[in-house]
């Protein structure tokens, strides 16, 4: 059983469960409020995934560390490299 088949099986099981609840395919006669809450579920999962992604991106932007020492070191190394290449004839 490949990973693709496993995922497809899982997704189709979830979709089948959703369809049975939303459209009352098994004549369960569930209360209307359950059906109303279950019907937008795929869209709700998509929206919450989007919110989670947005929140994670925002959080990582806010907590990204500036590394001042590394930045200074890198600039120094760039200067060194430029001087070295100029000595060897490359025009910068």
């Amino acid at each position, binding site marked *: 059983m490949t990973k693709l088949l496993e995922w497809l099986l899982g997704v189709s099981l979830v979709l089948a469960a959703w369809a049975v609840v939303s459209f009352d395919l098994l004549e369960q006669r569930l209360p*209307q*409020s*359950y059906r*109303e*809450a279950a019907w*937008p579920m795929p*869209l*709700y999962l*998509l*929206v*919450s995934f989007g*919110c*989670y992604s*947005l*929140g994670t*991106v*925002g*959080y*990582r*932007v*806010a*907590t*990204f*560390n*500036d590394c001042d020492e590394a930045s200074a070191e890198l600039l120094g190394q760039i200067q060194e490299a430029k001087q070295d290449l100029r000595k060897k004839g490359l025009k910068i």
Partner: protein
Amino acid sequence: MATGVDQAVGMSLVVFSLLLFTYYSVWVIILPFMDSDHILHTYFLPREYSVILPGIAAVILLLCIGAFTAVIMWKNRKPKKVD
């Protein structure tokens, strides 16, 4: 720690996504179980909009991505070389 604008933008994104998630969750999951004369219903649009608004947002997102791609490709077109 990232400073200044970075922190402000990041934190506002986090707060915005939390607010959006909470509002949408209450709208989709909790409201159907409240009686129709509950005061909470006055804060939320009719339920059809809970499907229409994300649909419109998705269309706008795709439009923006398409427009951005088109602009970039337009700027990078090179005239054909004449041999």
